[in-house]
């Protein structure tokens, strides 16, 4: 099995008021089992839109997304949003159960899975609380547990830590790496933070241009645990910046 998912010639376009806007064009890439891929790029390049297409919230205008049928997962994908989007009327454990209610698991099995997913992000003791009683960082961990509980072939994450303060963000990044390495979960992680991308991922794909295309795809061959000030990571980040920054400067519609 060489890849979990193969995206070929994927194009995304919107039509509004008779004007067609191409967001992404000719996107090709594969993700290997257990691989952690980060997608970076300036805002508006279509990173989030790509995730929305993969999860089924939007439809592509061209190309194919092929999921490897050999992957023994309960659900193809699960998405962690930028804001936690927990359901405020459900207690934490019930929120983690949410995606499992679409499966054929019994109530007891769902509960058991949710409890272990919650324990996996270190939040077993808040199971009976409501979302508003948790901090932003805790809520985002619950959102991660909710996505992991359905055991997706690919975990999609849409700038999941960008709304958090620096300390919380860094601790959640480390938590994510720990969980991902322990479970071998395949991850597709979207962020505009290049340092975050090289710190977390096995491979970074940088999107740029209008419509967005793959500008560079870099393997990050630095073993975990990584240091945030690792020189190799800095170099890799600098390379990505150069590619993306050059891109911004030549853009014709650049307005300050």
């Amino acid at each position, binding site marked *: 099995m060489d890849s979990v998912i193969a995206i070929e010639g994927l194009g995304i376009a919107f039509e509004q008021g008779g004007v067609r806007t191409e967001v992404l064009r000719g996107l090709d890439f594969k993700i290997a089992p257990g691989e952690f891929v980060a997608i970076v790029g300036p805002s508006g390049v279509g990173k989030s839109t790509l995730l929305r297409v993969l999860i*089924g*919230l939007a439809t592509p205008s061209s190309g194919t997304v092929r999921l490897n049928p050999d992957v023994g997962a309960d659900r193809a994908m*699960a998405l962690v*949003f930028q804001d936690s989007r927990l*359901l*405020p009327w459900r207690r934490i454990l019930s929120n983690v159960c*949410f995606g499992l209610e679409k499966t054929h698991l019994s109530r007891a099995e769902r509960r058991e899975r949710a409890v272990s997913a919650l324990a996996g992000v270190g939040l077993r003791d808040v199971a009976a609380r409501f979302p*508003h009683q948790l901090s932003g960082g805790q809520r985002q961990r619950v959102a991660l547990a909710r996505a992991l509980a*359905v055991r997706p072939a690919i975990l999609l994450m849409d700038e999941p830590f960008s709304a958090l303060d620096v300390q919380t963000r860094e601790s959640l990044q480390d938590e994510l790496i720990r969980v991902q390495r322990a479970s071998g979960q395949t991850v597709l992680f979207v962020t505009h933070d290049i340092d975050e991308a090289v710190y977390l991922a096995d491979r970074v794909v940088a999107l740029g241009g209008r419509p967005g295309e793959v500008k560079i795809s870099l393997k990050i061959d630095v073993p975990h645990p990584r240091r945030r000030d690792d020189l190799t990571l800095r170099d890799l980040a600098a390379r990505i910046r150069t590619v993306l920054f050059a891109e911004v400067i030549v853009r014709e519609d650049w307005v300050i």
Partner: protein
Amino acid sequence: MRGWMPYLLAAVGLSLFLGVWELVPRLGLLPPTLLPAPSQLPAAFLREAKSGIWGESVLFSLWHYAIGLAVGTGCGIVLGVATGMYRPFDWTLAWIVRVLRPIPGLAWVPFAILWFGIDQTAAVFIIAIGCFWIVFFAAQGAIRGVDRDLIEVAEAFGFGSGPEKLIKVLFPAALPGILIGIRTALGQAWMAVVASELFGVSGLGQRMQQASSLLATDIVVVYMLTMAALYGLVDTAFVFLQSRLLAWKA
């Protein structure tokens, strides 16, 4: 200081109200037949209660109230949610709603009598109409106001069909708004109870009508206060239920 102050001031306010009310007929500013003094009321209440009329009227009215409220609220929620979820359905009903909405419950009395006779069903019908519109618009607005982001969560986890979205996200998210509508309807329905019983169906309204035609104003006031007490009871119970249902709110 804050602890007992609200209760003290509430007691003062109520005493002032009762005091002025007592003084007006006593000082001869108004004859007792036009405004019975509060001190006359216990005796009037006991007479009504002993004869059994009070209990019977209350039971009849409560019955009309409960069924009318349930029917009106139920229909209001179903149609409000459906028009809130499906635009084409809303467009279809838009002008039917505009035609029927401004017609007051009382205006339906002739038809209620023709369709159901002088019967409990007629009273229930009038009360249900009184509640329906309030709940209908509350439910429709609440469903439309549900955060799109939360609906996306349902879709992202595979709950793509209308009924799934309704059960998983739309209804629970809209519940606070729907409950506000129902609470408004709780009061509206008591007003409708009186109207619905004016034409001969047994209950508080009918008894008030009889008493006022005999100028037994003390009895009329007894039933006014009875209705206030029943409303107070129902509303308090509802607020309690509401706080339990919405315990998740910050």
